[in-house]
């Protein structure tokens, strides 16, 4: 019987190694997989590349990793959280290198990897500092930046409900980056509020089909 449930957060992130690339779901707090990230902190792994829209705040696992210098590179669109100082301090202290990518291009680069494509031509950022060093291609008279796929070794995802095949539903704006990240990593670990029987999820409303999911941890 196919059952993707795991018993602990440590088991969910098993295989994580120094130097890995982690795709980390969430937009601020909604959809952020707090328990899985705590397990990453506990794992001791470092030299990580983390793809996350934000830089973490308020004592989260991500900000702990960053503050202790274990994130070599943060690929994000908006690292700073309003009202929080921890990221700014770690950044000013040189503890993390930031690769700033426009928000829609982060998700599109991950989708590109998920969909098995070799890159895409983006109109975003053309002629700006964020396109420096990237190849520019002209198609039908318009300039585009060639953006390359962004694939993770491990995706950490927060969902609402799952079944044992790994089908997922999300809750409101906690969906955000999670579906695209789930589809763009070699291993996808998910924490969910609730596990339901196979067949209990609406087949029309599953936002992440189980094919993209490897391990599911129920955290409540």
């Amino acid at each position, binding site marked *: 019987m196919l059952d993707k449930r795991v018993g602990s957060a440590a088991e969910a992130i098993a295989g994580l190694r120094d130097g890995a690339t982690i795709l980390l779901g969430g*937009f*601020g*707090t*909604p*959809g952020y997989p707090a328990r899985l990230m705590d397990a990453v902190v506990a794992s001791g792994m470092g030299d990580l590349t983390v793809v996350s829209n934000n*830089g973490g705040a308020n004592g989260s696992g991500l900000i702990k990793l960053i503050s202790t210098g274990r994130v070599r590179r943060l690929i994000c*669109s*908006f*690292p*700073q959280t*309003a009202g929080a100082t921890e*990221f*700014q301090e770690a*950044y*000013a202290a040189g503890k993390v290198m*930031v690769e*700033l*990518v*426009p*928000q*829609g*291009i982060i*998700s*599109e680069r*991950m*989708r590109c990897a998920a969909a098995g494509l070799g890159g895409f031509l983006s*109109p*975003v*950022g*053309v*002629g*700006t*500092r*964020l396109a420096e060093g990237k190849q520019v291609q002209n198609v039908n008279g318009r300039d585009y930046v060639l953006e390359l796929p962004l694939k993770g070794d491990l995706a950490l995802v927060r969902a609402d409900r799952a079944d044992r095949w790994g089908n997922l539903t*999300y*809750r*409101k*704006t*906690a*969906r*955000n*980056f*999670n*579906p*695209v990240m789930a589809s763009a990593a070699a291993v996808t670990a998910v924490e969910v509020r609730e596990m339901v029987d196979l067949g209990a999820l609406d087949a029309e409303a599953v*936002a992440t089909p189980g094919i993209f999911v490897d391990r599911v941890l129920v955290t409540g």
Partner: protein
Amino acid sequence: MKPLSRNAMAWRAAQDLYEGMYVNLGIGVPVMVPPYIPAGREVILHSENGMLGFTGLGKDEVVDPDLVNAAKEPVRLLPGGVFFDHATSFTMIRGGHIDVALLGAFEVSERGDIANWTVDDPGRAPGVGGAMDLAVGAREVRVIMEHTTREGEPRLRKTCRYPLTAAGVVKRIYTSLAVLDVADGVLVVREILEGMTFDDIVQRTEAALRLAPDCRPLRTPIA
């Protein structure tokens, strides 16, 4: 004359949003717009984190931590509102499906260039968010910003001094003193804060200006 407050600027920008428009509101003053959209107009708001069809939360409404806008503030979903993932959200943004993006900015040039993502402070990590996608992808980009910096320097420039978000994309600017449209390398002044003159605006602006023949006084019902 006292410049418009942030609320008053949000009010003014809201008046130009019409029934059936799909509108994205950037962080800063733009996210203050929803309560000022004239009653009865179904303007459908888009939030880049993955939502269409919401409005601000009323005072006594319960906060749902999983229901936030691009500024991570709690909001309320309207009947007909829907959720989707981030890749779909930016398909809407880049693909020309958003009628109007209302953005904050540090500076706008007379050619409609916008700079709103970094002030180049070497000690601070910059943040771009969805600004570049919105600036390039929305059918129309409008900016809400103070007319000048705290130090009194013009934000409407011949050329932006800060790194660009996108070139030549801004159509209309709502400032604390005026409403201006970008037209062929010059900003056309459509409305001037009641009690001020065109010369007052010229003195506070670096960009080339032209007075619209039908320029009207800029009046808001809130301070």
